């Protein structure tokens, strides 16, 4: 069929996989002597090979089929690398490389809390299976590796097995991911059964538009669960933070992108012309972005905050994908391209800065032994490197120019603006503008959220002893963060070039209708240079007063130094916003004032904020309760009384005989 592509690239790709498989297998047997460095270098080498292969294969790609004895029952193991897979594999390679550098130091910090072999085995398996999911060319291969990806990440969520929270998180995650797999498998079965070549599992033989859109919708929902789209995001803020930080980075940075990749693959590569799915995607995407960032803002656990922010960012991406589908249906090519470019660029960007932030959170965790914002603060003094790199991550994710998050958000805004003025339909036009309004709200919220994350954790005075005694992370951890921070910066200044690089991807996705391709027109580098020059100028102009700087206490109204308890906490920082969005968040403040004369002389005051998990209570609890009560009723049937059991036999007999007679 297709051109086999560059054989060297394929070889390199297989070599990368070989390194990873070696890592998995060596970590598997008990009492392996190999240490962190060994596994890390296997993982890292594999990633480097993958990058080399991607570069060589760009943009034509290659196809590889597993040799004969390996056969998945109904289809062979088929891998196909093309332009669409490249950006996603690139994030994967980048993040897995960073994770490989980061992990040894991080694991030393966790010491015996994590089983090292389990960690390396599962992490390498996780990376390996994600690479295969992205490259798989048929449904069965996809499912096999998809499940491996999910299960290995579940195991990693449980990697710190002592903690009860981790178990709970893993269970919720397991349920969600299994449900996602079930939906996807159902849709694949449908598609395969309806494919032109009978029972073909190859993607290219499938036709999404044949009978009905049900399989596409199933697929979309399944992928939404995996991507953490509202209201299926419930699992994400549990699972992502509980995993060890490097794994959280991989999960947030790459795994949710795998679901995005699948959306692009199935809804564009195999075109779906369903406005239902398009509007659903836009609606769910927008809701998740607002929801995600609001809850992120309310969080006081650094990693949970980051996890919720993943919900927000994935929401942005999915809404862009929905917009692209809408554009394609109504024939607005430029709009489609713009939205797709926004989605792709944001995937890459988010991979970089979310990876960076999670690694940073891990570094904070290892340095200060807590990631609760209530106990952090003032880390700037002891962890200057982590702080500086985390700053870059925060600025990027808050989409501040010139950092890279801005480029993709700009493309997103542009695509909705384009919808607003190029659409013929008045509802679509208003949709465009409304979404712009909502996204600007999201932008402001994410700014608030990341000022909180950075400001509370790193600035001010330490809120606890642990924070006071925090230690800077090890060399490897620093380098891994530095690598990702540099990638963020590189992406910031090469945004225009990156968008141009996406052209083959867009060409592949929109084969017959592709035209010119969008560009990122803001001369960011020029502006940055001007900004730097101005800074230099100001610096020179006002440097003369430099000598008069003196250090003193923070302004204390003359009462003498206030304790760190007087400082703004994470919770109080977001309190006004919590009140404004109180109904959405179910935000309650509980104030308890005690003492004999508590009106005038309160002896102790306790203020607690509490968010009632309304979504869980409304959407999930009843279903789970129903299943559980059904299960309970069935268990009660098992009475242990033999007479009752015999009665079942007789009743079943009578029922079946009646069926036999009257049917």
């Amino acid at each position, binding site marked *: 069929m297709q051109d086999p592509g560059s054989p060297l690239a394929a070889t390199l790709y297989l070599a990368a996989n070989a390194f990873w498989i070696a890592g998995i297998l060596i970590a598997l047997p008990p009492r392996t002597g190999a240490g962190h460095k060994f596994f890390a270098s296997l993982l890292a080498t594999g990633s480097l090979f993958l990058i080399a292969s991607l570069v060589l294969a760009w943009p034509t790609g290659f196809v590889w089929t597993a040799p004969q004895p390996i056969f998945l029952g109904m289809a062979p193991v088929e891998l196909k690398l093309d332009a669409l897979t490249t950006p996603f594999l690139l994030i994967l390679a980048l993040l897995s490389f960073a994770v490989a550098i980061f992990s040894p130091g991080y694991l030393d910090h966790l010491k015996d809390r994590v089983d090292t072999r389990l960690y390396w085995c599962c992490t390498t398996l996780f990376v390996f299976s994600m690479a295969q999911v992205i490259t798989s060319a048929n449904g069965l291969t996809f499912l096999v590796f998809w499940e491996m990806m999910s299960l290995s990440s579940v195991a990693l969520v449980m990697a710190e097995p002592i903690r009860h929270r981790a178990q709970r998180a893993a269970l919720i995650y397991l349920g969600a991911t299994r449900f996602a797999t079930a939906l996807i498998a159902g849709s694949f079965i449908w598609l395969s059964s309806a494919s032109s070549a009978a029972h073909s599992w190859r993607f290219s033989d499938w036709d999404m538009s044949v009978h009905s859109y049900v399989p596409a919708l199933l697929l979309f929902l399944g992928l939404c669960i995996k991507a953490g789209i509202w209201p299926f995001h419930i699992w994400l803020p549990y699972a992502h933070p509980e995993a060890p930080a490097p794994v959280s980075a991989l999960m947030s940075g790459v795994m949710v992108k795998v679901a995005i990749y699948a959306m692009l693959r199935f809804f564009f590569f195999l075109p779906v012309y369903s406005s239902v799915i398009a509007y659903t995607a836009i609606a769910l995407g927008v809701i998740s972005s607002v929801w995600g960032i609001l809850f992120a803002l309310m969080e006081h656990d650094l990693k949970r905050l980051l996890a919720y922010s993943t919900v927000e960012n994935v929401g942005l991406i999915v809404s862009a994908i929905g917009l692209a589908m809408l554009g394609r249906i109504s024939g607005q090519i430029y709009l489609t391209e713009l939205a797709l470019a926004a989605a792709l660029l944001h995937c890459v960007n988010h991979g970089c800065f979310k990876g960076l932030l999670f690694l940073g959170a891990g570094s904070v965790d290892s340095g200060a032994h807590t990631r609760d914002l209530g106990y952090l603060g003032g880390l700037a003094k002891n962890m200057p490197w982590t702080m500086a790199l985390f700053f870059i991550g925060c600025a990027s994710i808050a989409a501040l120019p010139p950092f890279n998050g801005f480029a993709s958000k700009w493309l997103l805004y542009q695509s909705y603006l384009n919808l607003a003025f190029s659409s013929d339909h008045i509802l679509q036009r208003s949709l465009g503008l409304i979404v712009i309004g909502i996204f600007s709200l999201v932008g402001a919220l994410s700014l608030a959220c990341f000022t909180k994350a950075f400001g509370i954790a790193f600035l001010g005075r330490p809120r606890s002893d642990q924070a006071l005694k925090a230690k800077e992370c090890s060399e490897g951890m620093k380098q891994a963060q530095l690598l990702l921070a540099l990638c963020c910066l590189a992406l910031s200044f090469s945004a225009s070039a990156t968008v141009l690089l996406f052209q083959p991807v867009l060409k592949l996705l929109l084969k017959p209708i592709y035209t010119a391709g969008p560009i990122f027109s803001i001369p960011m580098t020029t502006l940055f240079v001007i900004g730097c020059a101005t800074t230099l100028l100001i610096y020179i102009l006002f440097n003369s007063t430099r000598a008069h700087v003196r250090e003193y206490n923070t302004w204390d109204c003359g009462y003498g130094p206030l304790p760190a308890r007087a400082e703004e906490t994470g919770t109080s920082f977001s309190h006004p916003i919590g009140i404004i969005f109180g109904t959405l968040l179910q935000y309650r403040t509980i104030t308890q004032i005690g003492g004999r004369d508590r009106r005038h002389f309160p002896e102790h005051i306790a203020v607690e904020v509490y968010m009632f998990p309304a979504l869980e209570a409304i959407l999930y609890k009843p279903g789970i309760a129903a299943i559980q009560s059904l299960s309970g009723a069935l268990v009660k049937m098992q009475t*242990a009384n033999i*007479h009752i059991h015999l009665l079942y036999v*007789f009743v079943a007999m009578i029922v079946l005989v009646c069926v036999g007679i009257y049917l």
Partner: protein
Amino acid sequence: MIANLDAYQILAISAAVMAMLMLGTTHLKGGLSFYMVHTILVAAQAVFMGGMRTQLHEYLVPILYAGFKGVGVPIFLTYVMKKIEVDDDAGTYLPPPLCLHIGILMLGVSYLLASHMPGLVAASDAHIGAMAAMSMLFTGMLLMLTRKLAISQLIGFLVMENGIYVFACSHTHGMPMLVEMGILLDVLVGVIAAGLLSNSIKRSFEHIDVTKLTDLKG
């Protein structure tokens, strides 16, 4: 009406009635005697039915049947009962007289079912036999469902088994001999196993009230 019936039909009905009488008593020995008569009647009806044919095995099987199930099993069970020292049922879920009445009611229901159930009226001469057989099935079920003692349950099972045999006779005029012999053997082994097991139950639990075997739940 009686006058129109063949001998084997009369025998089948009387076997069914004998089985029903078992429902009325909790005395194990009495029940066992009823059972003995009942089984021999069942075997006899098979002989009479076979009498219309000429093959040897149609005599052989009923004779073995009467010998093993009608005589052997009661003797074995009497032995077991002596060993585990029970002679009365520990209790029933329904009072025995009520059981008996339900059994009689079931005979009526069986009559209706046997004559109206589609598929069962295939052979017109079979439906009295079918009625008797169904009545025995119901009786066996009642015994199994209401009696608390392991031995009584076993007897209930044997009654059901007899019912099936009557079905086989009335509906098919006998199955292949080898099959019937095998079935007989299996049932016998089953009874012996169950008898030995109830012996063990007695030894472990010091009773054979199966309603108290309720440790394995959920």
